[in-house]
């Protein structure tokens, strides 16, 4: 078999297809979706000569294994992890040639949560509303990978496409610091709660997923009772349900919601948030 496709040997805990996301449909209830660590995706796509919008695989903690049906250049980045081809060690964060029928194994993340696998030509799953991203909240886009599935690859980029070597990666710090801007509903919380938010250390809960980073720590006290009518939600919104524990909205977040948003995390900080594993510490700072 020499067709441009790959078979899934081991899907891992959760491996999805992701690109930059699905824009312009939020008013119809369609989440933006897209890769949670877009900087890692930009890098792995560059390493294989792809355009930055090419679709990649996003793994969750336990990696995945695939068997390309054609010789293809791949690059693994994002959360650092062991990489092998047919059992032989291969570099992480660099272009690697995989022959047809060989198994590329993306191991368990050593740090961080989400590793990314770019194939030259990109994953060519059918786009839905302009994006190949898997949206777990609403079930749009390609289904999460399962063992035995076969996914198509796009045409390889021309050999004279710009070639990049590996680039430095700052990694996931022991403590993730997220810059926030208060509002739009900070007035629903007591002054003490706002102080608590910016002076406490929160811990990432195992219940976190692509919809949101759930945090455990001192609960935030409301200044007002009652319910907020549903309103539009942005990426990075920190929503506070009645239990007082903040949830940072990631790419698959609902487009409208009824819990007050105390603050919004700056978008460039969200990649680090998405790489914060359960148990990692998170602090909020009022950002410039």
């Amino acid at each position, binding site marked *: 078999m020499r067709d441009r496709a790959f078979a899934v040997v081991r899907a891992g805990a959760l491996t999805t297809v992701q690109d930059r996301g699905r824009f312009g*449909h939020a*008013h*119809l209830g369609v989440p933006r979706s897209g890769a949670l660590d877009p900087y890692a995706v930009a890098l792995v796509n560059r390493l294989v000569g792809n355009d930055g919008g090419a679709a990649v695989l996003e793994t969750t903690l336990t990696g995945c294994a695939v068997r390309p049906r054609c010789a293809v250049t791949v690059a693994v980045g994002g959360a650092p992890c062991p990489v092998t081809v047919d059992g032989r060690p291969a570099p992480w964060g660099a272009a690697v040639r995989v022959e047809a029928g060989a198994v590329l194994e993306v191991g368990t993340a050593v740090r961080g949560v989400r590793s990314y696998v770019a194939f030259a030509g990109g994953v060519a799953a059918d786009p839905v509303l302009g994006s190949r991203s898997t949206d777990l909240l609403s079930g749009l886009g390609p289904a999460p990978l399962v063992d035995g599935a076969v996914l198509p690859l796009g045409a390889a980029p021309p050999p004279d496409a710009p070639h990049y070597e590996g680039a430095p990666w700052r990694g996931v710090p022991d403590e993730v610091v997220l810059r926030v*801007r208060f509002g739009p509903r900070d007035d629903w919380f007591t002054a003490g709660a706002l102080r608590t938010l910016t002076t406490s250390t929160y811990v990432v809960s195992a219940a976190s997923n692509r919809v949101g980073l759930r945090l455990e720590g001192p609960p935030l006290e409301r200044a007002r009772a009652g319910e907020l009518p*549903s309103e*539009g939600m*942005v990426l990075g919104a920190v929503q506070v349900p009645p239990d007082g524990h903040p949830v940072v909205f990631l790419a698959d977040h*609902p487009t409208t919601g009824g819990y007050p948003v105390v603050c*919004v995390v700056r978008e460039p900080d969200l990649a680090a948030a998405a790489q914060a594993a359960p148990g990692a510490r998170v602090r909020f700072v009022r950002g410039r």
Partner: protein
Amino acid sequence: MRALEVGEAALLLEFEDGEETRAFHAELLRRRAAGALPPVREIVPAARTVLLDGVADPGRLAVEAARWEVPPLDPREGPVVEVPVRYDGPDLAEVAALWGVAPGEVGRVHAGVEYRVAFCGFAPGFGYLTGLPERYAVPRRATPRTAVPAGSVALAGPYTGVYPRASPGGWQLIGTTDAVLWDTAREPAALLTPGSRVRFTEEGV
């Protein structure tokens, strides 16, 4: 109108009531179609707010928007979508009791009103429809169902909605439709889009 900045690149415009929200949303769409709105990635209407996301200068847009003259919404404006319904939902008797009518009357009341899609959310293509008089508002079910079939016509609070696909849900189910609420091969994918007028027609059993 109150304008609240949301993060670095979004603006939440808050209004007195749903009617004013709808009118302002229509004005935003008119201005965008006319090229008279700064680039914005998403315009998301909701119960009493409109979110503008992906705006270069939210503060400046807030100042400008406050100066707009916004005409009230013409009730006859906007396309009308007809949705045929069989009023056979499992919560029909409960809703009839809350409304103080016979179960057979629920469909007549529900189909006798013209609705407007106030906003979408919860799932792609799920519209929150307003129009039912306040006295017909019903509470959500105490225990949500783990599976509501696609095409279920439902009520909660002041809203009517139709489930585009099978999902968990806590709304009171009064009927079923074969209408296709969501089809990604269609443009727009949603049958019910914000601002659309909707009429339910009672199908014979």
